[in-house]
């Protein structure tokens, strides 16, 4: 009696199609989200536009559209000279929006990345180790996250801003660096909670037990096993962090607590804030374009975040 004939066994299961890693599977699922894919394109175009600012900007951020002696250049509506019009000092709104988007994106991306780095580390360790450390972290983040967001932000801002050795590293309260620092200090807590939850659910799975049985240290388990299996929540946190930081920056600017990058440079928040009174007078272009840019970024990143969440955890089935 011959041994089992390979052609008739279950061995062929799974071999007929190409080998798909979970990452590739998620990538494919992501591609079925029309809104998210579209957002990726739009965002990529936007970033390209910003990166090429030496070429795409028409004027400097603080440059007057033309010499005032040739005629008034303040508050001009959109025209050939200034695509988005000019502001109260005669600067080109289009170019300022471009530079503003750059600053906002820098703030958003950097603070989100730092939040993720700190939060993922803390959350993973808390989730894995448990015990006192976990308890303390949970209480602290609980309390913090329970505060009204803006209140906590402002209070922390001032508190850190008046501690000299902190401002030594991060710059003054109104600098972009401080802003990034502030949002990172805030953002890591939300990320830590998400990662902790993820680690808690992964911790009980057998492959972690197996890794331990092979003698893996905690660090190794986190780096090699837990984090790679948490890419989904991490990416979602990243996108939420970017949106959160950009919106927070705009909110702070609205109330006068925003960054002041100096020498006329600006952020989207500052542009929006500065346009409030001008709009009442009818200069709608001062508000429309910064608003549109802000909305575009937040919507795109939000849709991408949603797409990522569904791509990595398709359990929440149904519509998009």
């Amino acid at each position, binding site marked *: 009696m011959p041994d089992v004939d390979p052609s008739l066994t279950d061995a062929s299961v799974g071999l007929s199609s190409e080998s798909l890693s979970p990452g590739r599977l998620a990538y494919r699922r992501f591609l079925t989200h029309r809104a998210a894919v579209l957002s990726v394109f739009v965002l990529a175009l936007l970033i390209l536009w910003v990166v090429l600012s030496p070429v795409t900007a028409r004027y400097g951020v603080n440059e007057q559209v033309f010499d005032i002696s040739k005629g008034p250049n303040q508050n001009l509506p959109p025209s050939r000279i200034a695509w988005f019009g000019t502001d109260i000092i005669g600067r080109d709104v289009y170019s300022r929006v471009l530079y503003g988007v750059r600053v906002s994106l820098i703030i958003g991306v950097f603070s989100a990345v730092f939040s993720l780095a700190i939060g993922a580390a803390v959350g993973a360790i808390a989730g894995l180790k448990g015990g006192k450390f976990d308890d303390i972290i949970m209480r602290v983040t609980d309390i913090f996250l*329970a505060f009204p967001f803006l209140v906590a932000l402002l209070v922390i801002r001032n508190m850190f801003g008046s501690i000299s050795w902190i401002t030594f590293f991060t710059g003054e309260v109104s600098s972009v660096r401080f802003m990034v620092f502030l949002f990172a200090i805030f953002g890591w807590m939300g990320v830590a909670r998400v990662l902790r939850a993820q680690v808690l659910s992964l911790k009980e799975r057998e492959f972690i037990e197996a890794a331990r049985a092979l003698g893996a240290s905690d660090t190794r388990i986190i780096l090699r096993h837990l984090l790679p299996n948490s890419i989904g929540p991490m990416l979602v946190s990243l996108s939420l962090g970017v949106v959160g930081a950009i919106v927070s920056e705009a909110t702070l600017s609205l109330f006068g607590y925003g960054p002041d990058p100096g020498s006329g440079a600006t952020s989207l928040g500052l542009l929006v804030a500065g346009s409030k009174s001008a709009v009442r007078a009818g200069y709608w272009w001062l508000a429309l374009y910064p608003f549109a840019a802000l909305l575009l970024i937040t919507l795109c990143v939000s849709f991408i975040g949603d797409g990522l969440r569904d791509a990595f955890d398709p359990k929440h089935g149904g*519509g998009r």
Partner: protein
Amino acid sequence: MLRYALRRAVWLVPTLLIVTFLVYVALRLGTDPVASYRRTNIRVSKKKLDQYIATNGLYTGAFGYIRGYFAWLWGFITLDWPRSIKGSRDVWPHLKDALANSLRLGLIATVTGIIIGNLLGIAAALRPGRLRDTVVNSGALVGLAVPPFVSALLLQLLFAVYWQKWFGYALFPVSGVYPAGHQGFNLFLMLKHMALPVVVVSIQSIAVYSRYMRASLLDVLNSEYMRTARSKGISERRVLVHHALRNALIPVTTLAFLDVGSVVGGLIITEGLFEYPGMGRFFLVAYGNGDFPELMPWMVIIIGSVVVFNLLADIAYARLDPRIRLA
């Protein structure tokens, strides 16, 4: 059940104390009350300054903070509150008004959000993948992605500024609770003034609850016990309400409790933009002035509200989900 509630309630006081202490430290560092006081009252006598420091508990040095905290705490509990830095006025009357205004605004918007949001979420979950599900889901996503200040400014522009231009009058006013100089109580005017802020806050609220309920109900509908329930031959209506909703409402109810707890402090942006004299506005003004005596009581109300409702949320959760009680 009672034991569970009591066990959790025991943590209430220590939590409040610790958090208010941290806030006390943060505010002292951030607003420097002594300097602020000096700035507003340039030629203050040493005696008055000392008195001010004593009532507010502003002692310096490492243990000064701890001593100072308890001094402040004593004053707070015995209702011997210091006056504000700016204007030297009694804090409570203004705080009380601000609280009332915020509660009105916040509760109306939250209740609206809960009712409409949940209904939308249920509607979406019952037909997953179909048109109304996509509409609700995307709508909620947009609602969440649009920052509240954007919708606030847009609405202001639309209804107040442009409406005025096109139609010659302002449909919904953009600031305050009453028109300037109005005295007394007038429900209609009040509602008119609250209309836009309520809409702005409701947008976020509706978006959040619809997504939450949708996700929760979808999870429940995919559970095994739904099949068992149906196999009993009971009406579909009963299956949906008594079995599905009963389970789906658990996380949503917890969220609602937490939401209400944070309602008074969560309206800062909206109140700021609409110049609505609520708790948010109170904070912005006090903070801008670095007014420590006004900020501390404000913080206590906010913190107290959050902590108490967190506790209520936990108890509600245990009441609704028997699996938790024995844990």
